[in-house]
Structures are given as C-alpha cells and as structure tokens.
C-alpha cells in the first residue's frame, strides 16, 4: 500500500529529476563551448585534465582578428543606442502619460500600430534612407534609427501612468516647470522602468545581426556578431578557435545577466518580444 505522502514524495522526486535533466541539456552546449575554447586544437572532443588547458585559441583570435576594434565598435554602438533611446523614449512616454494635448490618441494608436510591424517588413526602405544619407559603413546607420523604440515607449508609459497625480500637482504649486517636474518627480520614481528599458535595448543592440550585416561590410566597423560570423566562416577547420570567439562574444552579456538576473528575467517576461 502506497501512502499519499510517499506518493507525493515520488512525484516531487520525478519532477526534480526532469527539471535537472532539462537544465543539463540547456547548459551542456554552453559548458561545451567554454571547455573546448581552452583546448589545444588536437585535443578537441577529448577529455583532458585542467592542467592541459591552454589560452592559445584566445591568442589566435586576438592576433588574427581585430577583436579589440570589434569590442570597441559594439560598445560605442550599444552605449549610444542605450543612452539615446532611454532619453528619447522616457521623455516621450512622460508626455504621453501625463499631458493632455490635441491628437494624443492618434499618436498613441500610431505607436501601437508601428509596434506590430517587424523590422524585416521595412528593412529595404530603411536601407534606402541610409544609402541616401551616405551612412553605409558608418556608426550613424547602426545608432540613429534605433534611438527610439515604440515598444519601450509603451512600456515606460505604464510606469508613468501608475504615479499618483498629486505628486506633480504639489511640485507645480511649488513653482517647478514641466521639465523640472519630469526630472525631480517622474525620473526618480521610475528608476526600475528606466533600467529595464536600458537592459532590454542594450541586449537587443549587442546581439543584433540583421541590421549590422545589411548596413556594414567594412571589417573595421564590424560589431562582435559580424566579427564572430566572419571568424566562423574563415576558421571552418578550427573549431576550438571558433569556440573562443563565441566565448568572447557572449561573456559580457552573460555576465551582465548573471549579475542583474532578478531584474532582467521579469522585464523580458513582460515584454515577451525580442527586438
């Protein structure tokens, strides 16, 4: 006779086992890449003790590819997009959440409509605009079009809408102007929302591929995703070198994720979409 308690324990045990196996499946490729990146090429796919690990793949990547330059490009592009987009989106969503003005409904509905259109569906005209501005192979093409994001305006508006009206009324009585109210009342109370925006757009920009591959073909202007793609194609026969490239591309974002994960996971869960 199986008691209910024993049965519940068994069920729980099975659940933990499945969750652990699934976690191992999800982690295995990442552990594999980290491990393989430290192996001498002849040791690839062999089990070797840690004292035989080598940095030669990393040295090879650094000496055969301008990876420092790629890091710099990625950091410049990501930094500018995050800074610009956070300022533009936050200001815009404050106006949408707190002000009454003519045509507000139209603006808001247009933003929602734009939000539904994927980048793939207007990439060609976007490319034509970039060509017209002579922006191919420049940082501008990777930064300026992405300094506004309809999804993030929408997200930020939710944060501002939740603030009580009395706060800004009190500030207005104290003689603060519109901008001061935004800066002194709106911003300090929505730091979480602003940080969420920064993390989302930062991750999207860091990992972006379609835009850089379309707008940039000068290796000196490659961002890391493009660099890794070319490294992968050129070192077809050197898997350990490719794996070192993967680690170099992925490390900063995974590190950021592990540090701020409590904060990041819910923000992706609420927006749900990528890019």
């Amino acid at each position, binding site marked *: 006779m199986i008691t209910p308690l024993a049965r519940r324990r068994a069920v729980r045990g099975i659940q933990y086992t499945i969750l652990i196996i699934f976690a191992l499946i999800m982690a295995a490729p990442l552990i594999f890449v980290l491990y393989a990146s430290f192996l001498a090429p002849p040791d690839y*796919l062999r089990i070797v003790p840690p004292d035989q690990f080598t940095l030669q793949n990393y040295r090879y990547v650094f000496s055969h590819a301008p990876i420092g330059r790629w890091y710099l490009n990625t950091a410049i592009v990501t930094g500018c997009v995050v800074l610009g987009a956070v300022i533009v989106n936050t200001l815009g969503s*404050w106006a949408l959440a707190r002000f009454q003005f003519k045509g507000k409904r139209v*603006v808001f509905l247009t933003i929602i409509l*734009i939000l539904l259109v994927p980048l793939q*569906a*207007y990439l*060609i005209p976007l490319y034509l*605009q970039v060509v017209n501005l002579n922006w191919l192979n420049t940082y501008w093409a990777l930064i300026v*079009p992405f300094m506004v994001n309809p999804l993030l305006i929408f997200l930020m508006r939710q944060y501002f809408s939740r603030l009580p009206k009395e706060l800004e009324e009190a500030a207005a009585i104290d003689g603060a102007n519109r901008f001061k109210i935004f800066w002194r009342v709106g911003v300090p109370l929505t730091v979480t929302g602003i940080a969420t925006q920064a993390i989302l757009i930062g991750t999207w920009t860091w990992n972006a*591929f379609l835009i850089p591959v379309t707008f940039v073909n000068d290796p000196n202007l490659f961002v890391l995703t493009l660099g890794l793609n070319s490294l992968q194609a050129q070192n077809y026969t050197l898997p350990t070198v490719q794996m070192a490239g993967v680690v170099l591309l992925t490390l900063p974002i995974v590190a950021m994720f592990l540090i701020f994960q409590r904060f990041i996971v819910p923000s992706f869960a609420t927006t749900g979409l990528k890019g």
Partner: protein
Amino acid sequence: MLAPAIALLVWWYAIPIVDSIALSFQHVAQFDFSQRSFAGLQNYQQLISDPAFRKSLEITATFVVGVVPAQTVVALVIAAMLHNISRAKGAFRTAYFVPYMTSTIAITTIFMQLFVKGGVAATALSVVGIPNETWYASTHLALWFLVIVYVYMFVGLYIVIFTGGMETIPQDLYEAASIDGAGPLRQFLSVTIPGVRPFLVFVLVTGIIQAIQVFDQAYVIAGGTVLGSPAGATSTIVIFIYQQAFRLLDLGYASAATVFLLACVIVLGALGWRLAPRGD
C-alpha cells in the same frame, strides 16, 4: 518633450513602412536606387508564379510547424513542474533563460560544431537511426537543425512567461482539486492549463509571428555562400526577401514579398487580439 520621439518615429518607422508598400508597386533600377518607376501589379504577379517564393512559404510553414508546438509544449510542462517545486526555482529559471540572452550567431556557431558529422550531437542522435552527417549541409536535415537551434534559444523565454502566468492561478483551486482526489496530471490538465489560457494564446501567436521571421540562423549556416543553403533547403520567407533585395538587387520585387509578410503578421496579430480575453 514628445517632439524627438515623434520625429524619429516618423522618419525611421512610419515613412519606411509606407514606402515599403509603395516600393512593392514599383521597379527600382538595379544600380541606381533613386530611379523608381511605377510597375502596377507586376511584382505581385511575378511573385504568385515564382516557384522559389512558393518553396519559401512551404519551408517557413514547415519551420513554424516544427518550432511552435515543440517550444510551447516543452515550456508549458517545464513551467508547470517549476511552479510545483519550492527549492532552487531561481537557479533552474536562470539555467533555462541564459541561451535566450546570448546571440543567435553564437548559439548557431556552437550547434554547427555539435551537429557536424562525427560531432557530439550528430553522433549521439545516430543511435536513434538519424544518419551521422553534417546536419546543416544536408538538404533533409538542415531545416530541422534550424528548428533545434531556434527552440533551444526561445524555450527559456516562454518558460518564464508561463511561470509568470501560473503565479496568477489561485492556490485554493489546486487544493480543491487535490481534495477531490485529482493527481498531478489531472491538476495540470484541469487547473493549470485553463488558468494560463491567455498566456497560452499569447505564446502561440507571438511564437508563430516570431518564427515566420527567422533569419540569422539560416544566414550563418550559409557561411557566405548562397543564402538558403544547402540547395535552398533553408530559404525561409525572410531569406528569400533578403536574397532578392540585397543579392539580386531587385528591391521592388523583394518589397512585394515583404508586403505579403507584413499582411501575415497583421492577420496573426489581429487573430491573437481577438482570441485574447479582455481586461488584462
């Protein structure tokens, strides 16, 4: 305060979206994009009779059918188990979510090494009768390779969305079911699934919309050769558009295919909107 946002939205979103539709009715000169002439419905007529386009629709549909049920079912089951346990929840969630944070280029590069002939995964799967060959170079397996890479990356996101949804289910529903003698499977079917219905609709609709637009993974496996390699086996809609626009420089024709993609996304979005229960 709204001015910078509006200016940028109009210039970089609204105008290109409208222009995309305009371009689909035009011919664009191949090496001077400023020369555009009205083409009427020619691009669309060509599109309908283009076997390459029809093939890309077929490939995209197969991809969606491969991806969406798999990622939804796995995410739902794993999320339900995660919801039931009390210890190490956060650690599991982290492990499942990390792949989604990394770039598609990195993940595709790793999986190409795992699924090369004699690679770890290709060898392991040959035990169940799948030929031990380089998956992404095989016309039969390349698309399924993309499905695996894609599901691996996105399943973590949907697990997180489902666990969030399950937290909104009142605990006493489970207790009542338990008193009625419902086992874990019964509870999953009659409490958890109805409880997360709105999230299920969201995950299905978003999942389809996202999967239709797959591009990066297919670009990487082509490795600088013809897009859609091997032999067009991974020529999805967006790969078809990209090939027409940026390799063959036929911008008007590519735009007609783009408008088709846009229409699909809007129809699916509207469908999701209708199916989703109001009030959230």
